[in-house]
């Protein structure tokens, strides 16, 4: 009962947050300098008729909230307006780009977890050793280095100097695609893996210092059994940081896609900003917001499965 109530409250909070975000995203249209109708016309010839047509189409004469309502109900049914730059439907533009970004981010996420979690656990277990210091050192560099700088270095070393990987392009066959996405994914994963290392190491260290680990050792549990205890406990803070990781991933993909000239959502956003293609900017921002909020929701539900205390207290 309490649990159902907690989940219900959590769902409502997510919905409220998305509503507030959508409102902010919509108001971007009015934040941009210049006349809204003109901005929406973009490079098309500006005449009184065309301006009037745009005003009519977008209902720009109506009150702000009414416009917002129109935009929101459109967005909910998948109608995100037309791109100023190309004139085609925003949803169609997104559709072309979203696949690549998904592939890139999933690949980077997998690499980051596969590298970051074992490295973080190892650093914590060998706390203070040379291995720990090396891993922490690399993590500090990884967290601090922006994805585009890492990307450029990788591009120079592995594509230009060594010629092992392509400089641009997305590849045709799935295997070719993987080959093309390898460098960008690594550039994106570098910072992410560093974050994973930090989160994991901090979490495992905290658990290793706790009484129950001492007590488990004191009653003769095998190292493997002790590890099972503290790794389960350490999984909770690692899991709850997933939202943070995802935010990092979506922020980084804009820069990495631009660096490697990949036609994904990130480079779409960057181009659209340059061309003041505000409907597309709004749509990409909204999509990212929805993705991150839903991921946060999933993470919270997963903590329920791992942590009996949260299950008992209900979600907060």
């Amino acid at each position: 009962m309490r649990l159902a109530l907690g989940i219900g409250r959590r769902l409502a909070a997510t919905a409220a947050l998305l509503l507030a975000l959508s409102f902010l995203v919509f108001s971007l249209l009015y934040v941009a300098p210049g006349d809204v109708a003109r901005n929406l016309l973009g490079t098309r010839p500006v005449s009184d008729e065309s301006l009037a047509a745009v005003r009519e189409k977008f209902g720009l004469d109506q009150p702000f909230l009414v416009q917002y309502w129109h935009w929101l109900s459109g967005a909910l049914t998948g109608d995100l307006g037309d791109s100023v730059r190309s004139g085609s439907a925003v949803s169609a533009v997104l559709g072309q780009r979203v696949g690549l970004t998904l592939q890139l981010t999933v690949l980077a996420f997998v690499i980051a977890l596969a590298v970051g979690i074992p490295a973080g656990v190892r650093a914590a277990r060998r706390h203070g050793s040379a291995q720990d210091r090396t891993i922490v050192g690399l993590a500090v560099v990884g967290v601090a280095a922006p994805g585009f700088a890492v990307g450029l270095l990788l591009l120079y070393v592995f594509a230009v100097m060594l010629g092992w990987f392509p400089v641009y392009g997305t590849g045709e066959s799935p295997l070719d695609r993987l080959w093309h996405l390898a460098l960008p994914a690594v550039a994106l994963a570098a910072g992410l893996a560093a974050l994973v290392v930090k989160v994991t190491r901090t979490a495992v260290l905290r658990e290793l210092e706790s009484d129950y680990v001492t007590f488990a050792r004191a009653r003769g549990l095998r190292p493997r059994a002790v590890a099972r205890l503290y790794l389960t406990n350490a999984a909770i803070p690692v899991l709850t940081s997933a939202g943070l990781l995802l935010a990092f991933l979506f922020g980084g993909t804009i820069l990495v896609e631009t660096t490697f000239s990949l036609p994904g959502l990130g480079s779409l956003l960057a181009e659209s900003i340059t061309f003041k293609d505000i409907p597309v900017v709004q749509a990409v921002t909204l999509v990212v917001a929805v993705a991150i909020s839903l991921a946060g929701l999933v993470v919270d539900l997963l903590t329920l499965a791992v942590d009996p205390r949260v299950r008992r207290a209900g979600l907060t």
Partner: protein
Amino acid sequence: MSTVLSARDLQVRSAAGPIVTGVDLDLHVGTTLAVVGESGSGKSMVAKALSGLLPRGVHADGQVELAGNPLDLAGGERVWAPVRGRQVALLLQDPFTSLSPVHRCGPQVAAALPDGLSRTERHDRVAAGLAEVGLDPQVARRYPFELSGGMRQRVAIAAALAADPQVLLADEPTTALDVTTQRAILDLIGELRTSRGMAVVLITHDLELARERADHLVVLYAGRVLETGPTRDVMSRPAHPYTRALHEANPPLEHRVARLAVIEGNVPRPAQVAGRCVFADRCPKAQEVCRQGEPALVEVGARRRSACLFAAEELAGSPVPPTLAPPALGTDRAAAVVRITGLTKTFPGAAVPALDDVDVLVGAGECVGVVGESGSGKTTLARCLVGLEQADGGQIRFLGPLAPTGDPAGRPAHKLVQIVFQDPYSALDPALTVGATLAEALWVGGRPRSDVPALLDLVGLPASYATRRPHALSGGERQRVAIARALAPGPSLLVCDESVSALDVSVQAQVLNLLHELRGRLGLSLVFISHDMAVVRQMADHVYVMLRGRVVEDGPTDQVLSRPGHDYTRALMASVPGRALEENA
């Protein structure tokens, strides 16, 4: 009697210096040996050294034999892995943290079982283990956070004993528990010792508890053994002034003394007292020779040893009976300073009220004791009294010499009532000097900063302490500063919320004497909140016993403590360590 564990010249060191030096132990099957010491004595390090669980950077040295086989203390996991659990198990102090919070109790108990058991065998072994510690087998399916502290410690004991160790090291196993639960857990450990033919090493700060539970005592101070011997002999005729002083500093439960015996000064760190008798600085009988070298631990009787140069005189001396104070049979409660009527408080989300229709009256110049265990509401009462918490209903009315301030909510003004909290380590702002903290409190009372030295003097601290920061002070000194801060605005009523319970026994007596003295000198009224019946006996004129938010009994202290009217009061009295022995003596 066969020896299961023996240690010769056990040493524990870190890079910063020695922590424990020259400990000898002989542990016999079916007996309990108590290692008694105050904070900084190194008693926990002895337990950790004997289970191979010393923290990183701390090393142990010495000859240890376990069940007849020599044990290499520095041997690392290779040596310790087969020993821990099967031969030696360590039970920790805090049952709230010693079990993994996200695993059920059953698997945690089962984890130490030997391999190769079938699922049903493991299940049965867990059920049997839980039954052995007096728990229902259903507890196996519960999470630790669903259990009370006492139940958790029982689960921990079952887990510690799952691999059938011969030696149980119990490090302050009941310190984190309520007094009535403490006795049950200690009884259980005693029963298991007998039924399993185990040997127990009991690490404790409480000499009276050791006296009640142990066959043999090792008294540790600043990393040194000062005295060892059979409990009965040591307690009846101590061979070291420290043992005697520690015993005398314990407030007696049965009668009220005019003045508590104290050990002057603070508990030192081992490095501060190296190369001489470690107790010399605080010993009333110390001679010049005590400071010239470290006295050896020498044989002073049958299985008895003492590290005092004057052990023979000490043994010959007879205990000086304390001067008794007239029993507290009640004070004049007609002139009340505060009258609390029908106070109720329920915290949001709590199932039971923290305060349920509580009536309390404090007479002018009176010390009112409030006793109870955790969850009794005694701390909530204190917080309502000083305005840190708002009651849901009822009245707190300040009367008589504490002229009412006209606050309709009945909230006390800070000049009327002040409070001293429990934990000395967070009592003072770490960013401010003692002088700045006190000056601010004086400013509240409209007094100048120049009163700081006088205020420090009032609580027995030198004026030079004004420039110190809290981290440079001992626990007792911090608590004195906290008292000075509370007195600065000139309150008429001082609330002491467990104000001495975090202090070492030798220091606790000093602070209790100080409070008693200040009460007489300043005409203060006190509300003294404590879980410790013996302390309340010494301090309070009138006592209120609280249970689950209600006052179940109240009356003049001597009447309530000597002839309790309520079952709960009787249970509290029966739980005080050493009481049974005291009656027989």
